[in-house]
């Protein structure tokens, strides 16, 4: 995956570049909005990571102009601000996801990978399949090895999101944002409880676990070890 990091703080930028490289991705750096924009226009990147406060051309304007020129590369906005308003503004400008500083790198990585997947032209998949687990998006039915599994509506949506990102790490915050549409930090382990309920339904009576906990990061559904 090829990532462009547009960030004026050199230390943060270098940290991101190094970390992304270690995670197996290539990362280019741009220190201001204009450089970022001209690099992004080449269209070689899978994801853009854009800081909101940038010299010469601020992040939101840069994204708006890129979108105006037809550049559809997914954008993750980084911001020191972090009110609901700012999030809405960022998404309205054409950003695809929003992360408030300071953030955990695992959170950033999970989001960047989720965004990169979205960029792959996604023909409306009607079925998600992971090993013997099948989620039919048309009939809203879930089966494992042909056996039907009864899920509550929320559990269904949780599984749907996890399976959509099968093989990728999905963080608790991402689940809270996409499955519940909530943007806050719960002080209790709510998401864990919901995931373990789901796990009890899809993994309990089967030999091979599919829903894995990724320590310090979140969850992933995949065929094979986490």
């Amino acid at each position, binding site marked *: 995956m090829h990532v462009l990091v547009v960030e004026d703080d050199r230390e943060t930028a270098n940290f991101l570049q190094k970390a992304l490289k270690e995670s197996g991705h290539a990362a280019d750096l741009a220190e201001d909005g204009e450089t970022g924009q001209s690099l992004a226009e080449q269209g070689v990147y899978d994801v853009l990571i854009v800081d909101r406060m940038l010299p010469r051309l601020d992040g939101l304007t840069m994204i708006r102009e890129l979108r105006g020129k037809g550049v559809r590369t997914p954008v993750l906005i980084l911001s020191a601000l*972090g*009110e*609901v*308003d700012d999030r*809405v503004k960022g998404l309205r400008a054409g950003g695809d996801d929003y992360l*408030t500083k*300071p953030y*955990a790198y695992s959170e950033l990585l999970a989001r960047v990978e989720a965004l990169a997947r979205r960029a792959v032209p996604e023909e409306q998949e009607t079925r998600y399949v992971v090993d013997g687990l099948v989620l039919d998006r048309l009939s809203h039915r879930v089966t494992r090895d042909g056996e039907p599994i009864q899920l509550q509506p*929320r559990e269904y949506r949780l599984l749907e999101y996890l399976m959509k990102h099968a093989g990728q790490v999905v963080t608790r915050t991402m689940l809270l944002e996409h499955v*519940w549409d*909530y*943007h*806050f*930090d*719960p*002080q*209790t*382990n*709510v998401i864990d*409880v*919901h995931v373990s*309920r789901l796990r009890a339904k899809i993994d309990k009576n089967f030999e091979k676990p599919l829903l894995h906990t990724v*320590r*310090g990061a979140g969850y992933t559904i995949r065929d094979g070890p986490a």
Partner: protein
Amino acid sequence: MALPDRLSRAVSTTAFRVAAVTVTVYLLCAGVVVGMLLWQTNRILTSQVLGTLRSEAELLKVEAQSGDRAALVRAIETRSRPGGPGLYYLGDASGTKLAGNLSRIPPEIAGSAAGGVFRYAPDVANSSSEQLGVAIPVDVGGGTVLIVGRDVEEQRRFAGEMGTVYFLGLGFLTLGGLLAGFLVSRVALKRIETINVAARSIMDGDMSRRIAITGAGDEFDTLAGNLNAMLERIEALMSGLREVSDNIAHDLKTPLSRLRNSAEAALRDARGSEAYREGLEHTIEEADELIKTFNGLLLIARLEAGALEKSAERFDVGRVVRDVAELYEPVAEERGMTLIVEVGEDPQLTGNRQLVVQAVANLIENAIKYSKTAAAAGAAADATITIGLRDMDKVVEIAVTDRGPGVAPEDRERVLKRFVRLEKSRTEPGTGLGLSLVQAVARLHGGSVRLEDNRPGLRVVVTLPKRGDDR
């Protein structure tokens, strides 16, 4: 203070200026009134004199018409005796004076048919002192000239004296008014000076200082009362701020030193070992907790400073409450608690949905946290958490009730403040910002938070107006 200085200060006060303007306007009015009074007095007196003269003229005319000129001359002479009030002149057609105490026809009257005012020298003494008279000519026929008049010197003097008295009065009025203005301004100055003195000592750092209230119930007392109330509010805010910064210092120092300790401990472990990894992970967890605290603080600060309009939308509160409750239901169940949702109606509310979600979530998390003891005690009935929503015409009330230890009445105000955690819960995980955030959200929406006794347990009621702030 030197007197001229005091005087100039007094003169430059608003009270004195108001007095000066009032006195001036009053003087002008009084001047006009006095002038009119004098003029009218003169007119009345003159017309009285004229009336008298006319009736006398009628009498003399009758006498003259009897044809006896000598009798007329006698009559005039009788009337002209010194000490009498009248002035007379009787002359024949050739201009020779026949009788009377006027030496000649007053030039002012000669040729006038209606008569009028004239000056004459009383022929008795020195001719230089002229006196004022009023006279009318009387037509007695036969070329005889008869002038009947009255001396009005008395009247003139009376009018003059009246004028003097009036103007003296005006003078006194001016002086009195200015003096009153001066005194009033001095009283005002004194009252303002007490406010200034208090303000200066407050500026010097004596925040508990207040402005004395005299009890007169006047505007100054109202002003002092308002200023005192303002100072009260400022002091409360400042002490709140101080408490917050003290608490920040304390509550951030503890996790920071924990973070430092775990990093140091990890450093001692062999690089790449499981303990090393765990130590670093623990360090990151501690850092994340700190970040959460900072984010919470920032959010509260922004809510307290912010306006709602930007992010306001219309949404169904009933659904929000039900959804958040649904999110936490498994958590409660896992801990042996029962979450009951009592949402009858589905009122619509204008506000920030995300913030209301977070407020409700905080309340439920608190309830779950503090119900633990009851659940641990094994009394299942005591581990019930109720989330209620009531539609009350203009507002909605969201009430979250637990059956935990509750909050003592004296602490209820305090626990809404940032970082305030009661001693018994200091050991529990948490940032101490939950209820502060709930309060900030409620206030942003123009609502309020109150804590009640659930006997046993705590009942937190959040009141939110349906229509934002009605601004």
